[in-house]
């Protein structure tokens, strides 16, 4: 909204100065050229690092593409058929990885959204002076690389010498096999992920909360609404578009889980936390089957796009309902 206001304001300026039409048109051209220049950096990046790799990946997926061999015959959809052939190793790799990834998405996304919003409301209700401090503190982990995050948690959760279990033992409790037994392995991976990325969702929610008009709360107060009713009928409807954004970005990010299980559990115990991306990387760079790996990656992106569309459809009901 704000963006729109600003740009329309800019383009009305020449009229206010009562210039001739020609100069107005020039101005407009210039303005759209300026806008183009602003988009250009992103566009270049988008084409270089997203569009080209995407189409190249689809191209590779249609070939028998061994990384070492210079011969790469075109095989059509054979790589895709292989994934759906229930006797192949590619099938096993893809679907067991996909199932594990699904589990992680199911465990992590609700928490990423709910805790993100909860933290945002907590931080927002703090006195102005210390609000900044907490906002920064919660956001800092987001800027750390995944390897550091994984190693931090690996040490803290170590069954035999980790901080967490040492503390449990001191309190007279049993130690917990955080990274070597199911369901604890998932719990640990989800905790590490929350700690790492929750700051981002929190910041987005804080901005959304600040956009909620104060008058609406005041009016609700006069009408005698409880704080829960205010949250339910004012806050939630107002921040709904942002909520949807957070939901979708969190889902996509969770599908792309790789570093945490790769570094913390190595996919264990057995292969119960071996997620899809680990399988794809193995297929691509250990077995050197780039064609098959690309086919898996393409299927994975289709699944992510599909799920995001469903989320969009289900959550973004017509505006009317919300207003009533």
């Amino acid at each position, binding site marked *: 909204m704000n963006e729109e206001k600003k740009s329309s304001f800019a383009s009305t300026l020449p009229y206010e100065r009562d210039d001739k039409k020609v100069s107005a048109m020039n101005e407009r051209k210039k303005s759209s050229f300026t806008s183009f220049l602003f988009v250009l950096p992103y566009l270049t990046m988008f084409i270089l690092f997203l569009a080209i790799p995407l189409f190249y990946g689809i191209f590779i997926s249609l070939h028998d593409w061994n990384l*070492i061999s*210079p011969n790469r015959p075109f095989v059509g959809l054979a790589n895709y058929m292989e994934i759906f052939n229930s006797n192949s*190793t590619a099938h096993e790799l893809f679907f067991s990885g996909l199932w594990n990834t699904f589990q992680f998405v199911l465990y992590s996304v609700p928490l990423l959204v709910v805790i993100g919003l909860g933290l945002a409301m907590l931080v927002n209700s703090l006195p102005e002076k210390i609000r900044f401090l907490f906002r920064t503190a919660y956001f800092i982990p987001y800027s750390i690389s995944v390897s550091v995050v994984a190693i931090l948690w690996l040490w803290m959760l170590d069954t*035999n010498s980790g901080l967490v279990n040492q503390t449990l033992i001191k309190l007279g409790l049993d130690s917990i096999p955080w990274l070597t037994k199911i369901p604890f392995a998932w719990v640990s991976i989800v905790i590490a992920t929350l700690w790492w990325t929750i700051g981002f969702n929190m910041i987005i929610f804080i901005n959304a909360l600040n956009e909620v008009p104060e008058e609406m709360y005041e009016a609700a107060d006069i009408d005698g609404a409880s704080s829960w009713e205010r949250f339910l009928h004012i806050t939630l409807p107002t921040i709904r578009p942002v909520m949807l954004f957070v939901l979708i970005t969190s889902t996509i990010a969770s599908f792309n889980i790789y570093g945490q299980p790769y570094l913390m559990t190595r996919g264990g115990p*057995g292969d119960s936390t071996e997620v899809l991306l680990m399988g794809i990387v*193995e297929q691509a*760079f250990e077995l050197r089957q780039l064609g098959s790996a690309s086919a898996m990656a393409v299927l994975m992106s289709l699944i992510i796009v599909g799920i995001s569309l469903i989320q969009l459809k289900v959550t973004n009901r017509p505006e009317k309902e919300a207003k009533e």
Partner: protein
Amino acid sequence: MKKWVSLVATTSLFAGLMAGCGPSDSSTGGGSGESNGDKEIVFWAPFSGPDGPNMQKIVDGFNEKQDEYDVKLQIVPQSEYYKTVDLALNGQEDAPELMIMHGDQIMTYAEQDVLKGLDDIVGDTVQKDQYHENAWKGAEVEGTTYGVPLDIHPLMFYWNKDLFKAAGLDPESPPTNREEFIAAAQKLTKADEGQWGFALPTLWPQQFIFPTIVYQNGGTLIEDGKADYTSEAVVDALEFEKDLISKYKVSPENVQQDGELTLFLQGKNAMHLNGPWMLNQFEESNINFGVSTVPRLGTKQDAVFANSHNFVIPASVEDETTVTGIEEFLSYVADNGMAWAESGQAPASKAVYESEEFGKLKQQPQVAKQFDYVQYSPAVANWGPVSDPLFKAVNEALLGQKDVKKALEDAEKESQAQLQ
């Protein structure tokens, strides 16, 4: 107008950034840089750790000694190494003239015909009997030699001398067989104090430990393209490992990735199996440790699992002067490889490992002692992915998720599917 100036500035800054993203040389390790018409030999190696400068020292020595050839060492980080090698060998990028390759990778590449057979080269300047005979076994595929050995790195045995003393054991004589090992481990274990005789890893480096015990049992893992994980030798190896946790109770349960290493570094784990590359880390920690050959944890024979570093030449290198230059360099390395030993590794060249200077080192002579009975990964392409199911089975059995035999049966089927 100001807006325009800043826009132009931003765009050009951006263009500069983009240029920086282009393909750049993999980090060049030093190099003298004085190319006065010498024949250049580009040499790739994955030595991005503390071993890099040691290899650079050898290369510098060779470049100074003669002025016909100029060897340029380019270090590619270990994690990127084989991806980079793959791209170079399929002709997408300039291939080097000389590369380091691990023994367990040679078969995969040789099968794709991207490595030069070295049988014409070995024999003149570089001679087989200059190296330990077992070193060549790691570089041969079906009778053809594809690599010239640099070193062999077998599994090693480390122990905490202070804990041995405290438990009333002789800190200078580590166990040598299964019985002594179990007895020592039991004496060293004080579970209620969180001290363990031998914390057993459930993940890496089982890739070295488990095959070692299988080979010591006289067994094999893959023979003639068939995975055999249900033979008595293999089952006994896994049952023995499991007993260390559940029967002898000398290892804690649920050891996670690197959990046993953390305990060893904290002085709470008395005995530890790992590769010779750990030396630097152990020396930097303040534990009073000893290093020796791996005790015979199997029941039949001395054996230890090992991998190796070898020099290989891409098939595309045909220029004769270059090949002669490489021969001279390799022969120089064989005679002057002491610098490589300083990285903790044991060079496979007799001139080095039989020298007096080498004998005075702490770890390296122990590594070389095991040369006589090292065994490598089975002769199959893609050993890494093929063996994944096996090490998953080890993981599941040791974590009590699956019965030993069942886990091995499942793994055998999975590995077999990969082999076809």
